[in-house]
C-alpha cells in the first residue's frame, strides 16, 4: 500500500463544480473538504430541488385531495421508488423512510428484537461498529437480558473472520455489522458474512451508512434482512434515512412509534395499523428531505456508481501512498479491502491539534474518535485524524492535505 499506484487519470471524475459549497476560501485558502464520511456536501441539483419544492409544491402528504398535496405525495412517493431501484429492493413496501441510519437501527432493535429477545439469546456485533450500530444493541440487550457479543478485529482493522464465524452459534438471534467502517474505511466481505449467518439461521442487519455513497448496493445480492443508511452521507439532506427490510420480517413486526399515517383506524379501544411501509412511518415525514434524497439519487445515477467507486479507488490509493511517505505518519486502518477513508496519526501530536492546524490551511478533516470508541480502544489511541474522500475530491486535494500535514509536523517538531 505504500507504493503509489500509477495515475489512471481517465478514471477520475471532475464534478466539484456541481457543489457550490466547495467554491470558497477558508482562512484565506481554497477549501479542501475531506470530511465527507461525517457528512457529504450537496450538489446544486439537490439544494435547488428542495427549494423549488417549497416554492411550488409543498403540502402535507397522503391525506390531501388538493393539488399541492397530490404533487407533494407524488414527489415523496416517487423518491421512495427511486430508493427502491437504487438498492434493488423487491418492493417499495420494503423501503421504510426514517430520519437516518441511527433511527433505522434503533427501529430494528426495538421493534424486531425487543419483543423476541430472551435472556440467554445473543446479539452479535463487531468491534468495528459506529456507536449507532453499537449502543442500540447494548440498550436492547439490557432491556431483555440478552447477551451482546463483540467480534474482534486485527491490527489492520479487519474483522477476524474466523472468530466471527465461531461466534455465530445457534443462540445468536441477530448479527449487526457495518458494510464499511467509518473510522478505518475497511470494506467487510458482506456477502460471505451474510452467507455464513444464513447457514445458521441468524438474521443480519447491515449498517450501510458508509457503503451506499461509495459503491453500487444490491440488497438482493447481499441477501441481508435489513440494510440501514442515511441521506446526508450520500449527498442528500440531513434528517433523512432508510431502513430496507425484507417484507416478510417487516410484516410481522409490531409498529415502533405511534401516530398519524401509521394507522388505518383508531378506535377508543384499539387500533388497526396501516400497511407497509407506512406502519413504520408515524407522523408527518421529512417530505422535502426525502424529495431531496430522490434528487441525490438521480445525481448519483447520472454519474454511475461504478465510476464513482473507480474514482475513489484511485484517489484513496494515491492518498494512502502520499500519507505514508510523510515522516512520522502512521496509518490506522490498512485493510486489504478499503474505500474512501484514511485515518492516521502524526508523531505524538494529538489529532485535535492537527485538525486545527490543517483547518488553518483550508483543509477540513475530522479528528477524534469518529463515534467508534471501541476501535480507538483497540488501537489504544484517543482518536485519529481522518481524511475521507467523495466524488468531488481530486488529487490536488490530496496534495494540499499532504502539504498541510507537513506544515503541522514542522510546527510541532
Amino acid at each position: 500500500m505504500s507504493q503509489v499506484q500509477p495515475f489512471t487519470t481517465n478514471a477520475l471524475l471532475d464534478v466539484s463544480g456541481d457543489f457550490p459549497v466547495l467554491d470558497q476560501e477558508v482562512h484565506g485558502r481554497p477549501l479542501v473538504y475531506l470530511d465527507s464520511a461525517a457528512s457529504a456536501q450537496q450538489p446544486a441539483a439537490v439544494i435547488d430541488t428542495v427549494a423549488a419544492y417549497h416554492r411550488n409544491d409543498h403540502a402535507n402528504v397522503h391525506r390531501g385531495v388538493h393539488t399541492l398535496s397530490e404533487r407533494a405525495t407524488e414527489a415523496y412517493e416517487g423518491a421512495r421508488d427511486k430508493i427502491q431501484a437504487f438498492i434493488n429492493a423487491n418492493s417499495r413496501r420494503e423501503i421504510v423512510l426514517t430520519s437516518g441510519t441511527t433511527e433505522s437501527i434503533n427501529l430494528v432493535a426495538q421493534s424486531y428484537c425487543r419483543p423476541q429477545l430472551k435472556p440467554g439469546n445473543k446479539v452479535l456485533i463487531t468491534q468495528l461498529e459506529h456507536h449507532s450500530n453499537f449502543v442500540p444493541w447494548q440498550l436492547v440487550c439490557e432491556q431483555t437480558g440478552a447477551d451482546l457479543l463483540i467480534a474482534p478485529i486485527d491490527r489492520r482493522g479487519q474483522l477476524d473472520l474466523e472468530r466471527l464465524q465461531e461466534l455465530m452459534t445457534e443462540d445468536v438471534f441477530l448479527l449487526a455489522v457495518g458494510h464499511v467502517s467509518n473510522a478505518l474505511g475497511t470494506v467487510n466481505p458482506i456477502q460471505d458474512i451474510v452467507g455464513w449467518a444464513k447457514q445458521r439461521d441468524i438474521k443480519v442487519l447491515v449498517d450501510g451508512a458508509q457503503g451506499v455513497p461509495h459503491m453500487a448496493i444490491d440488497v438482493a445480492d447481499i441477501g441481508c434482512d435489513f440494510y440501514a443508511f442515511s441521506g446526508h452521507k450520500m449527498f442528500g439532506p440531513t434528517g433523512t434515512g432508510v431502513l430496507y427490510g425484507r417484507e416478510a420480517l417487516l410484516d410481522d413486526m409490531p409498529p415502533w412509534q405511534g401516530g398519524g399515517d401509521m394507522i388505518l383506524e383508531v378506535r377508543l379501544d384499539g387500533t388497526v395499523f396501516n400497511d407497509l411501509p407506512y406502519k413504520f412511518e408515524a407522523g408527518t415525514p421529512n417530505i422535502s428531505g426525502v424529495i431531496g434524497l430522490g434528487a441525490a439519487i438521480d445525481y448519483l445515477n447520472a454519474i454511475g456508481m461504478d465510476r464513482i467507486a473507480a474514482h475513489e479507488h484511485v484517489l484513496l490509493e494515491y492518498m494512502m501512498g502520499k500519507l505514508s511517505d510523510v515522516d512520522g505518519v502512521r496509518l490506522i486502518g490498512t485493510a486489504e479491502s478499503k474505500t474512501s477513508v484514511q485515518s492516521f496519526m502524526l508523531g505524538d501530536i494529538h489529532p485535535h491539534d492537527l485538525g486545527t492546524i490543517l483547518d488553518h490551511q483550508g483543509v477540513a478533516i475530522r479528528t477524534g474518535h469518529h463515534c467508534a470508541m471501541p476501535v480507538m480502544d483497540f488501537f489504544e489511541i484517543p482518536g485519529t485524524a481522518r481524511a475521507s474522500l467523495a466524488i468531488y475530491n481530486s488529487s490536488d486535494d490530496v496534495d494540499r492535505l499532504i502539504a498541510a500535514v507537513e506544515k503541522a509536523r514542522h510546527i510541532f517538531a
Partner: protein
Amino acid sequence: MNTVEAIDADELRDLYRELILDHARKPRHFGKLESATHAAQGINPLCGDKLHLYLQLENDVIRDASFEGSGCAISVASASLLTDTVIGMKTDDAIHWFDQVTDRLTNESANSDFDIGKLQALEGVREFPSRVKCATLAWHALHSAIEQRSTPASTE
C-alpha cells in the same frame, strides 16, 4: 338537476358523470347480506372511506353480493357498480375483472380490449390521482373477500 351545466371544468364533469352521481345517491345492493359466505372490509385511510363487502359464493360462483359503509360519491358508486357487475360471475372471472378494472382506472395506457361496460364511467378518476383509491377500494375488498384475507384491504 343542472349538474353538467354547473360544472365548468371538463375534468370535473368527467369525474361526476350522471351515472356516478346516480349510483352514489341510490346505491344498489346496499346493506348487509345475511346469506354471505365471504366478506371483507375496505379502508381508505386518506379520507376515511370504509366499506364492508359481502359475497355469497356457491361452487365458485358469486350468487349474491352487497355492501355497507360510508364513503365519497366515487367509492359508493364504484361499490354499487361492482355489485351490479359481479353477481352471477365465477370468482375467477371476478378476479380477472379486478385486474382489468384496477388497471383501467390507474393506467392511462391500459389495454382497453376488455369491455368493462358501465364501469367505464369511472375512468374520469385517472385525472384525479387522489381519487383513484376511492374508485378501486371496493375492488380491493372484493379481491380480499374472495381470497378470504383477514386483514382489512386498503388502497395504500
